[in-house]
């Protein structure tokens, strides 16, 4: 085997990417080691996050030194993460499907690039700007109009009931901002797939007497279903890890599970940011180690979701094969 210095140096650069990923996982895992020992399974199933007495002498539990009374349970944040992302998908899915269908079928070809670009641009607005807009516009709107309206119309459903719809900061605001942020991901994936549907399939449906909308909904949508699922899973991966926008509008709940759609929530990502200052006060570092453990949990969740998305990412090819 010949030694090729040029190729090898490029390979070294390329290997830095897996190395960085490995380092992230490795250092988080090593650092969280003590936290694994101390927390055990109570970490996942506990709902109380209590830093303990930071000013008293630390006690030794299971061989590690922790502040007296410390308890780290993250179920609240895991539920907050999954729930806000799930509701976001529920909102984003019809929006993006409608968007993509309209762009693909009704918008004249001359205007399609401009409108498609506007939809794409929604995805590039920085998360923190979404958060700012959420605080300034969306949260007051939810507090004054959307919340009371939902409570009045859907109040018979358990999750929407609630005489007091709160300040506007909460699960609903977080989900709506997330939905807006992920809609372009689903919509652009679906739009690309819809534009790939072969002419013959459309024309065959027209020839059977279908209305234009039936052509889209009954002949074209089934062909792009796999791509749609892929786009949704991809969007889910983004929503789960979203930090700033959620942090700014979610109300930041600790130690309490959301009981309705207006309740304040925390997601894993937003909780990590909000805890930096208090965790640094812990002389035993156990709070910071537990945060590393929760970061690992978030990594594992998004990894699983993104790996799932990969199964569907050959979606555009699926459309061609469906011919």
């Amino acid at each position: 085997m010949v030694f090729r210095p040029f190729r090898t140096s490029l390979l070294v650069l390329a290997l830095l990417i897996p190395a960085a990923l490995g380092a992230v996982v490795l250092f988080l895992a090593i650092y969280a080691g003590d936290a694994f020992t101390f927390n055990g399974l109570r970490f996942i199933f506990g709902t109380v996050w209590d830093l303990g007495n930071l000013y008293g002498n630390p006690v030794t539990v299971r061989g590690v030194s922790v502040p007296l009374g410390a308890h780290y349970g993250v179920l609240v944040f895991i539920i907050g993460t999954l729930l806000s992302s799930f509701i976001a998908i529920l909102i984003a899915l019809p929006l993006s499907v409608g968007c993509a269908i309209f762009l693909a079928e009704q918008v004249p070809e001359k205007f399609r690039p401009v409108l498609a670009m506007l939809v794409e641009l929604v995805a590039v607005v920085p998360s923190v700007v979404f958060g700012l807009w959420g605080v300034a516009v969306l949260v007051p709107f939810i507090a004054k109009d959307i919340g009371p309206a939902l409570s009045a119309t859907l109040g018979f459903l358990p999750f929407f009931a609630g005489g007091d719809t709160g300040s506007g900061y909460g699960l609903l605001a977080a989900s709506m901002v997330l939905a807006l942020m992920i809609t372009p991901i689903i919509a652009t994936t679906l739009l690309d797939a819809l534009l790939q549907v072969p002419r013959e399939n459309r024309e065959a449906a027209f020839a059977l007497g279908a209305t234009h909308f039936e052509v889209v909904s009954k002949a074209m949508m089934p062909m792009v279903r796999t791509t749609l699922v892929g786009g949704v899973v991809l969007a889910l991966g983004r929503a789960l890890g979203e930090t700033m926008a959620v942090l700014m509008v979610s109300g930041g709940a600790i130690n309490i599970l959301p009981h309705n759609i207006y309740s304040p929530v925390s997601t894993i990502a937003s909780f990590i940011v909000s805890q930096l200052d208090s965790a640094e006060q812990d002389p035993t570092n156990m709070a910071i180690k537990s945060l590393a453990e929760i970061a690992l949990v978030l990594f594992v969740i998004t990894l699983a979701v993104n790996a799932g998305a990969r199964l569907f990412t050959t979606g555009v090819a699926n459309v061609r094969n469906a011919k």
Partner: protein
Amino acid sequence: MSATLNRPRRTGHERRRTLSAALGWAACALALVLVIGPLLDIVYVVAARGLSAFSIGLFTTVTNGTGGGLLNAITGTIILSLGALVVAVPVGVGAGIYLSEYGTNRLGSGIRFLSDVLTGTPSIVLGYFSYIVFVTWLGWDFSVLAGSITLAILIVPYLARITELALRQVPNNMREAGFALGAREPTVVFKIVLPMAAPGVITGILLALAISVGETAPLIYTAGWSNYQWNGHLTNSPIGYLTYVIWSFINEPSDSAHALAFAAALIVMLVVLAINIGVRLVVRRKKPG
């Protein structure tokens, strides 16, 4: 309604079909409005409230408590983003070259997969990793270096992917022509392939710049915040940046803090949108040619 006279009466079934089609299209149009509407509202609200806070002092004075200007944050964002590019461009472009030119084997697809995993990793996880390693373990504290390296880890996979795609567009004939003239691999890559793919690579670098300018969460854990201009130290001195002003000052009670938050948001949004719109317009204009 004269047309109905010439045609047989529509059955209920037919009417239901046309009605549901009309409703369907209306719902689709509404969806488009509900997506583009908020974008326009974000741009409008941020521009209106940000512009009213614009003044010469905003760009010439540093932040003072929750008032003053944004000079320290503007320079901080520039330094952090350029620092990230300095670290990320050689790695990302180099990795892209490897993946495009020599990465058709199993090793290449492995790297590609792990690169995708890194892209999908939430930025706060990367930020927390940097906090543990750079800020506390290596003892750099909140600093330019910690912040820039974190941003670099964030954007390297994008750079690698876009570089790879750009390089793949270069026809193989060009490479073969180069080799036929006796050029060696580095010459072919740097004198033929890379120059031909330069627009694509530069696009990638610009998009990476837009990402780093708009990023917040990992910087909170690595760059900290400072009211003063950067003192030139790479480590052990925190640095301000625009996105911090946005998320932190909007929660302060004073009007001056809110004004600064919107002004910072306007600057960040203008940079990010300008880069993204510019790149898309240029790419589109080139396509038909």
